[in-house]
């Protein structure tokens, strides 16, 4: 197993910069998820680690050894592709055994290792089938098996679950996580799905436009997003954001939403000079109350019942906000309601830099 160090990685195609000065230190046995919207460079970064893309500047080191000029064959990493990339002309057993065969292992050895892996992944009954005779979930497992069989220094996953249906995806998420627990292998996992990122990662790297926005554990990122982008990217439904003015009150700060009707006392925030901010409250932290005397109000557009939860979609000024609650809400469209929240759950970002304001 191995640690992987990326320092000042850059990738350019002509004058277009795909990856811009990315540095990440991945520890041995860590499960790191690279997450971001499509086109953010996360897959390119993974492929650079794999050795499938050249590096324009910076260094990639595996266990302290710089591998920039080492081809994918000799990096001793394993990768699970989004398309699984199973060799269509080989059976399950041949697919899983292929890396060992390339390393000149004996038939016996290959047979034993394949059987072992197949047993772990419940593929025993499918060893003689070709990929086209397998279901999506089974193919996914074979791809995993091919990665596991030779105990590589690290696993790379390129959106491995995105071709599965929702139910299977959930199931495979748990299985992959358990597999990681038992193998303890360094893993780098690329996804655009924030739920996968939140549920699987030891640490998440949020990327946007070729840059790293924030690195941290899932809860760190959720509780203390470094900027508006991270706040907006993680969490479902999306965080509610509104422009507001931060002011000084009696021993603490006050917050007045541009769309609101008066300052709200923030007991936990020290008083500050007059400042333009973006304020964010997650839908789970908002509560619908009577509009009378409320400092923040909205008009109900739609009420969604998912069974357990109720999502109320409202217009707050020109913004669309969502309130999620476990209580069934009986609201009608067009109704005016007040909104309240616990100030400890408030996120504040500078209006100009979009960076988190800490206190």
């Amino acid at each position, binding site marked *: 197993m191995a640690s992987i160090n990326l320092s000042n990685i850059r990738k350019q195609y002509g004058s277009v910069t795909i990856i811009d000065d990315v540095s990440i230190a991945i520890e041995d046995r860590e499960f790191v998820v690279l997450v971001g919207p499509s086109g953010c460079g996360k897959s390119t970064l993974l492929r650079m680690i*794999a*050795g*499938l893309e050249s590096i324009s500047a910076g260094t990639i080191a595996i266990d302290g050894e710089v591998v920039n000029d080492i*081809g*994918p*064959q*000799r*990096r001793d*990493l*394993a*990768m699970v*592709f989004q*398309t699984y*990339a199973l*060799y*269509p*002309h080989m059976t399950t057993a041949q697919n899983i055994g*292929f*890396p060992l065969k*390339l*390393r000149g292992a004996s038939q016996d050895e290959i047979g034993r290792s394949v059987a072992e892996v197949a047993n772990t992944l419940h593929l025993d009954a499918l060893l003689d089938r070709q990929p086209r005779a397998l279901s999506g979930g089974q193919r996914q497992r074979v791809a995993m098996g*091919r990665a596991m069989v*030779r105990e590589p220094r690290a696993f790379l996953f390129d959106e491995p679950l995105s071709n599965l249906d929702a139910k299977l995806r959930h199931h495979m998420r748990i299985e992959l996580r358990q597999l990681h627990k038992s193998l303890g292998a360094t893993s780098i996992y690329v996804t655009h799905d924030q739920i996968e990122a939140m549920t699987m990662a030891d640490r998440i790297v949020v990327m946007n436009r070729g840059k790293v926005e924030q690195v941290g554990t899932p809860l760190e990122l959720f509780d203390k997003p470094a900027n508006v982008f991270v706040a907006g990217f993680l969490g479902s439904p999306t965080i509610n954001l509104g422009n507001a003015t931060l002011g000084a009150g009696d021993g603490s700060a006050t917050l007045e939403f541009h769309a609101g009707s008066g300052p709200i006392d923030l007991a936990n925030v020290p008083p500050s000079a007059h400042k333009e901010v973006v304020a964010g409250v997650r839908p789970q932290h908002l509560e619908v109350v009577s509009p009378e005397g409320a400092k923040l109000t909205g008009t109900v557009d739609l009420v969604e019942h998912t069974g357990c939860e109720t999502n109320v979609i409202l217009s707050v000024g020109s913004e669309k906000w969502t309130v999620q609650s476990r209580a069934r809400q009986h609201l009608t469209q067009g109704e005016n309601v007040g909104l309240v929240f616990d100030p400890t759950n408030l996120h504040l970002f500078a209006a100009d830099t979009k960076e988190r304001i800490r206190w």
Partner: protein
Amino acid sequence: MTKAKKSLVCWALLSPFLLVVLFPYATMLSTSLKQKDEIFTFNRTWLPRELYLGNFAELLFEKGFGRALANSLAISIGATVLSLAVAIPAAYALTRMRVPAKGALTNYLLITQMISPIVLIVGLFRMFAYFGLVNSLLSVIIAHSAFFMAFAVWMLQSYFATIPKDLEEAAWIDGAGRFSAFVRVFLPLCLPGIVVTAIFTFVNSWNEYAMSLTLLRQVSQQTAPVQIAFLTGTLYQIEWHLIMAATLLASVPVAIVFASIQRYLIGGMALGGVK
């Protein structure tokens, strides 16, 4: 309209053309099974008097047509092997690698594919004459390869492009070198495409007339189509029964092979041609 009715209409509409297509085959078959006196007579019929196979025997054992078939076979196999040997790496590079001036290269190949060798036949003949290769099967093998290769590259390219790049990348990560991944993963997957291209090249080479006619000037080196045409021009009384037997021998096996790949040509080739 039921499918049965529709089928009847379709066949009826096609029948005039099908009749014209099949007429020469009927002629070949009927004539090659006849004896000489059945042809040069006034009371001719479609059906031969008996199933007479003597023409084939005479052709192969007395007229030396076997030699022509062997020449054709040698040239076609040679040209197929040579054109695929140069076309496969080129098509691989064009589909999988960054090639400088790729656009110019593909356009060049496309244009050469359209230049008929007959337009340059004088120059071709002089070039092979300079190297002393006239009357050598090698000259025709080289010439066929040069003119059929562009099409092979182009056909292979469209097959290669259907093989996901992921598979090779997976093989590299699994530890295969570039060449090993090509041989163990890429080649087996595009084998069908290579076979179709090979058959197409073979048939083209087998059927080619003008270059073989010009570059091989001795009877002993003639290919089957050249010798057949030659037989119609040299004898006092054209021995049609033998010639029809020869065309049958030289065309039916090739037609069968060709028919086996026709479904790959429709779609694949036409779409590739437009895109």
